[in-house]
């Protein structure tokens, strides 16, 4: 680590500490978004901050609420949560700066009817204000009936090379209308099959930016924008880089980046990961801790026949996020077969939920080095045991007071773990498996 990197690392650690202070007991187990069947969006320009300390112009979809007030643009756009077979209506107005182009939305995987606005290449578009549109041209309305539950992407269908780079995209989640046959109404299912059951869910929407393009847009140097030289150096999950993505949803200091990425769960639970490639790069995302199972792609269960459930599911620890593609992964962790007791139990102690009984009371297998022989990471509790605690060196932040097990979920194209030349940043996130006694929501 060079010296600048070290100083930055210290700042990052301090930042994480500050962020963790704000960790509340909000609903950690659900994806935050806007639910319903009618949404009013406005395409606007705004600014995001990146973890290298920079700020960047973006274009995003903003939400107009029932009172007619329009919020700030969001990066990514609002996560739209709808119900299978319930018709959805989305209006879009255009407040993008001059020369940005008209505004539109396409919903891959859905049969959409678009009315109003002006004709565009892919769909109807909301005309730019400086072109003095008629009332009918100002706003476009998209209607569709989502017939298949699952995870989807929506994005701009106008000048998509530039407008998607600028941030006009978001997640669309279609929830099943009813509990699947043989299912338990008290449980959650991603699809119309019992084998899509989950306990918690998290969104992983990947995107990237080339800061040079955004600077050219900011300075209105339209003729200089050249995508043949596209070279992104900033990467995002749900619109934030590491470590900003650890902070809560809707924190006031990230007003245009409302969504975090901080999954937490208990051993034995099933986490549904809704995985979306919203940008133009492929990111091989690697999940520490255990294999996931990919049960669906592009809003369809990986089934050999209708009703067969995810019988073609595949497991691995790395999956490529493909531009425009979505996938649903199920991840769980129990610590089984590790060969030692992750709780540090004595044989006479009671079992924890989902504890792998053959390892109960088995001693820790090695002698750990003395404290001064090693560097303690910011998320090390000082103990190898789940829910454990140990003596920490002076100056350690103590950021893992509950003794959770932290697993990095990150891009394995490791240069993407930076934010515009600054390590660490970019596509790093952490799953925390908490001790069964630690409340999560």
């Amino acid at each position, binding site marked *: 680590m060079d010296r600048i990197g070290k100083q930055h690392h210290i700042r990052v650690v301090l930042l994480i500490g500050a962020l963790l202070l704000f960790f509340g007991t909000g609903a950690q187990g659900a994806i935050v978004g806007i639910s319903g069947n009618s949404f009013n969006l406005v395409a606007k320009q705004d600014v995001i901050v990146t973890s290298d300390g920079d700020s960047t112009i973006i274009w995003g979809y903003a939400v107009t609420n029932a009172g007619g007030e329009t919020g700030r643009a969001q990066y990514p756009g609002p996560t739209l949560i709808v119900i299978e077979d319930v018709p959805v209506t989305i209006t879009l107005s255009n407040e993008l700066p001059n020369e940005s182009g008209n505004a539109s939305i396409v919903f891959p995987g859905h049969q959409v009817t678009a009315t109003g606005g002006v004709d565009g290449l892919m769909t109807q578009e909301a005309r730019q204000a400086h072109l003095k549109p008629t009332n009918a041209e100002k706003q476009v309305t998209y209607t569709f009936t989502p017939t298949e539950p699952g995870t989807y992407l929506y994005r701009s269908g106008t000048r998509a090379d530039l407008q998607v780079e600028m941030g006009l995209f978001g997640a669309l989640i279609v929830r099943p209308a009813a509990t699947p046959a043989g299912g338990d109404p008290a449980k959650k299912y991603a699809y119309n099959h019992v084998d899509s059951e989950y306990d918690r869910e998290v969104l992983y929407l990947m995107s990237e930016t080339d800061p040079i393009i955004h600077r050219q847009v900011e300075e209105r140097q339209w003729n200089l924008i050249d995508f043949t030289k596209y070279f992104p150096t900033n990467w995002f999950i749900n619109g934030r880089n590491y470590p900003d993505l650890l902070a809560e949803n809707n924190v006031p200091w990230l007003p245009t980046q409302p969504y975090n990425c901080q999954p937490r769960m208990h051993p034995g639970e099933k986490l549904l990961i809704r995985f979306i490639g919203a940008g133009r790069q492929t990111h091989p995302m690697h999940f520490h801790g255990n294999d996931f199972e990919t049960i669906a792609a592009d809003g369809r269960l990986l089934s050999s026949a209708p009703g067969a459930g995810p019988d073609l599911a595949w*497991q691995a620890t790395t999956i490529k996020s493909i531009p425009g593609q979505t996938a649903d992964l199920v991840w769980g962790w129990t610590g089984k077969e590790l060969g030692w007791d992750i709780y540090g139990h004595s044989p006479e102690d009671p079992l924890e939920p989902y504890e792998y009984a053959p390892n109960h009371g088995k001693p820790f297998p090695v002698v750990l080095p003395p404290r001064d022989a090693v*560097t303690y990471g910011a998320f090390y509790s000082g103990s190898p045991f789940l829910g454990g605690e140990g003596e920490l060196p002076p100056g350690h932040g103590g950021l893992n007071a509950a003794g959770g097990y932290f697993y990095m979920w990150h891009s394995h194209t490791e240069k993407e773990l930076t934010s515009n030349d600054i390590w660490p940043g970019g596509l790093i996130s952490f799953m925390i498996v908490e001790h069964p006694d630690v409340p999560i929501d």
Partner: protein
Amino acid sequence: MKRRTRYGSMIVLLTLFGWLWALTVSANVLVQCPGDTNGDGISEDPNIVCRSITGGDGYTTMADGLGLYIFSFGDADGVPADRVIADLTLKAQLPAPTIVLKQGQELYLTMTNVGMAVRPDLFDPHTVHWHGFPNAAPIFDGLPEPSPSANMGNSMTYYYNAVVPGTYFYHCHVEAAEHMQMGMIGNLWVTPKQDGTSIGGFTKFAYNDEDGSTGYDVAFPLLLTGFDSFFHIASDTVQALPFAAMFDEYPMINGRGYPDTINPNDILNQEGFGAQKIPSLITATAGQRILLRVSNISTTHQYTFATTLGVPMKVVGRGAALLRGPDGKDTSMTVNVLNVGGGQDYDVILDTSGVAPGTYFLYTTDLANLSNGDQERGGIMTEIVINPL
């Protein structure tokens, strides 16, 4: 040798003396090997495998002759604890020493941080991350954030109960973009319990398939990676590291570009040490089945490869898992071209039945990666020699 920096070597001489003296005072090297009764570093219990590696630095030679500075792991098996630092300084290997286990064995892997002799201004810890280990615990996951990582002059022993067979790899996870670009990567696989039984005419298998579908006669690891020479030179010459500009232009198989991939000897570095020990020449007798254990650990590139054998590749494993659905349905894939993203690993079987004896190629179909820097006909390519029966 096209380029050679004396800078690093000077620093080595100037600093090693005082620095090693300091280490003898503070070093905390403890090689842990239960069941080793005679102190040779080998357990007398056949179910326990003890390995000793170092984390440090060294040099490599690219196939066009360019010398590049690396960080990686060195081989300290059998080296007494009090000799590890003295004997293994500047002895990093590319790739790191290969680790092979049998399903059910327990691995005690001691990693000693011998420091970066060429970069004494760096005081980086190192770790071992077993990539893909199922149900891992952070203490042995090698992520520096939620675990301890060994400082210079100190060792840490990692424990793994290897119950899931398959193709994995390992790497250092400290400042991963830097340490992995610098070369801290190695092959690792676990052979299945089914090995030694006879199913479908085979006695060796990639997985416990129960039907011989992953049976093979000969196996070869193909660890794909690449170096960005500018990054390595910047590190060697104590310059700011170009993270954003990082872009590999020395694509390699097992740490070598073609034609070094078919060289049976060690590739010597500027210190005369054979840091690149793993050739990738693939040989088989006509009719045999070849298993390729393919992984990609590039920090910048995905790689796609094919062969000129004229027979398809059967992909039987992915991510250290047999390609079967949850209810056992066969989900193996027959392909001619396979893309491997960073962090992915695949088990691929080539059935050479009907292939005429001769020399064939395995090569990347991302043709720009058939290069060693600006030298053509290099990079990710090796030869497959099919011998007559």
